[in-house]
């Protein structure tokens, strides 16, 4: 059997926040701007140390609004750029997040969720920002939201977040929580040739032919960096293909349509899930983030007891992996959605529940974890009831 032999130095004991930093640098991120907030601060601290060493830039800004502003500016200048925050800071970022969606500026935002609303329960784990990540900024907008459930995923999904952000020119939100962010695990970080790195499409035509927001087959126009010789205009106003403000419906509608089409065309690549023991399962759990780990244990325990139960772990939360979820719903008598919020993803699951099966729930908003035992209890109640 061909298994990769681990050299001792390959294995590292690191926390999720550290893995985010390693993943970002691996992906080519060379700009970080942030503002201190628990439980995300380690990301800023580690970037402060690492960035000058890898030729990048770290800056601590005056608030989270400024942090995302600087990140967008850096990306416009050609750098892969990111910021990291938690709930209150994420709220402040919503304004500039909308700018990045509309002006199609690649950037990655890590939100280490804590229990809210407001200052909430600093800094207990939560999954309360799920719908804010999708709908927090005003207006209809495309966005990608991923959720990490382990230290290794903090690494691999940060790389993935950058890849998707660059490829589709859209902000990508990576959600974690204090459990994932602060837990130390032994992980084997991939070597540089083991994961794909994607860079944004760049214009190949001469500057005089460059039309910055022209519709392409992929819906993603090539992006020139400021200073590269392609002088053009970037604005948060709805714009025509040249980037200039417009009020004309024959320009607005195709533009908005393209913004969404570029993401829908990529569903197959963007919507990531993992199935465990789904094949013969009659009942299923749908979970994401740290809760998915407790759910996996609960499902294994339920199997030991003879229950035919499976788990669908959502890695991509938005665009919502409708096809994958419906595939599970179709084959289930009932599903259970445990979440550290009052049912934000359960609402999405219900939305695609064309099969009218019961959608059970376990919700916690008191800053405490949902344990495997809680979920096993939920599974037994679902099967019994």
């Amino acid at each position, binding site marked *: 059997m061909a298994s990769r032999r681990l050299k001792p130095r390959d294995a590292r004991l690191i926390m999720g926040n550290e893995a985010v930093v390693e993943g970002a640098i691996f992906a080519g991120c060379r700009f970080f701007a942030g503002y201190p907030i628990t439980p995300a601060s380690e990301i800023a601290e580690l970037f402060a140390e690492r960035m000058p060493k890898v030729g990048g830039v770290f800056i601590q800004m005056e*608030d989270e609004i400024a942090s995302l502003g600087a*990140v967008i500016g*850096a990306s416009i200048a050609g750098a892969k750029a990111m910021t990291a925050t938690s709930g209150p800071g994420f709220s402040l970022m919503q304004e*500039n997040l909308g700018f990045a969606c509309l002006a199609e500026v690649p950037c990655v935002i890590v939100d280490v969720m804590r229990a809210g609303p407001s200052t909430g329960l600093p800094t207990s784990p939560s999954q309360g920002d799920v719908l804010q990540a999708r709908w927090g900024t005003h207006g209809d907008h495309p966005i990608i939201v991923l959720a990490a459930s382990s230290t290794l995923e903090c690494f691999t999904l940060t790389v993935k977040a950058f890849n998707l952000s660059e490829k589709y020119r859209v902000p990508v939100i990576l959600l974690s929580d204090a459990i994932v962010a602060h837990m130390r695990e032994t992980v084997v970080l991939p070597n540089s040739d083991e994961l794909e790195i994607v860079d944004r499409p760049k214009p190949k035509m001469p500057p005089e032919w460059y039309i910055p927001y022209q519709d392409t087959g992929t819906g993603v126009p090539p992006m020139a960096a400021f200073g590269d010789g392609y002088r053009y205009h970037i604005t*948060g106003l709805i714009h025509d293909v040249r980037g200039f403000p417009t009020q004309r419906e024959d320009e607005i509608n195709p533009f908005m349509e393209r913004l969404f089409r570029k993401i829908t065309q990529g569903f197959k690549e963007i919507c990531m899930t993992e199935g465990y023991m789904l094949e013969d399962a009659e009942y299923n759990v749908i979970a994401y983030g740290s809760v998915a780990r407790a759910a996996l244990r609960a499902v294994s325990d339920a199997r030991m007891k003879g229950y035919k139960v499976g788990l669908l772990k959502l890695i991509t939360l938005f665009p919502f992996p409708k096809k994958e979820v419906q595939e599970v719903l179709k084959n289930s008598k009932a599903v259970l959605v445990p979440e550290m919020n009052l049912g934000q993803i359960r609402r999405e699951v219900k939305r695609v529940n064309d099969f009218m099966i019961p959608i059970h729930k376990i919700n916690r908003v008191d800053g405490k974890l949902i344990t495997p035992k809680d979920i096993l209890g939920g599974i037994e109640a679902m099967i019994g009831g």
Partner: protein
Amino acid sequence: MPEPVTKLIHKYLRHDKKFPHVWCPGCGNGIVLGSLIRAIDHLELKKDEVVLVSGIGCSGRMSVYVDFNTLHTTHGRALTFATGIKLVKPELTVIVVMGDGDALSIGGNHFIHAARRNLDITAIIVNNQIYGMTGGQFSSTTPYGAYATTAPYGNIEHAFPISELAVVAGSSFVARGTVYHVQSLDEMIKRAIEKKGFSVVEVISTCPTQFGRKNKMPDPVSMMLYLKEKAVKKEKADTMDKKELEGRFVIGVLADVEKPVYMEDYGIIKEKCQL
């Protein structure tokens, strides 16, 4: 000899794409833009190497008209976007144009921190003492007692002295001009761009439509006369007492100091780390 105006227009404006502009008759924004273009032309900067960042408001539209790398950002946040650009491409000349509501009200926090941080960025603040685009509400620089749509009984808040604030916040270069004193404005903007470090040029501007109309200066000429009468040159102001200066504004260069520039210090850190 300055270039003829038409030649500069053809050289620097997106004249075939983005005109007519949105500004009212008697607005000072065009005068500020003219000064900016003359300063850039005089310094012989390459268009590819100039970045013009603007915020939201009437002055925010300035970026769309000029043929540079132009970025029209969110309200009050222009300096933060400019910070990211400058840090990634320090070789670019980054100029930020903001209004008074933009830079000092909603963006006040970013403004003082940009000055404190001392990045090599030039900030031009067009101070028309009112929210023009939204219809004449008072801003953080509307004079005490002046009228605005949200101060129908007179403004009971006190105005920020933008330039003085920029000085104490740590800017390398600070100058205040007006759209009446255009030649000295050209010179101030030129010096601000040349200066290494955070440079601020506050330009007291005219808004007959929204400010003048409510404050007994309903036409462009009376607003220009207001600027002429209220402005006091720095040299003269230094000889006047506080009482005499009440209700007037000091024009000229208020600060021009040498201090460490952010990117240079960060460059030193980078070099040390990579050894």
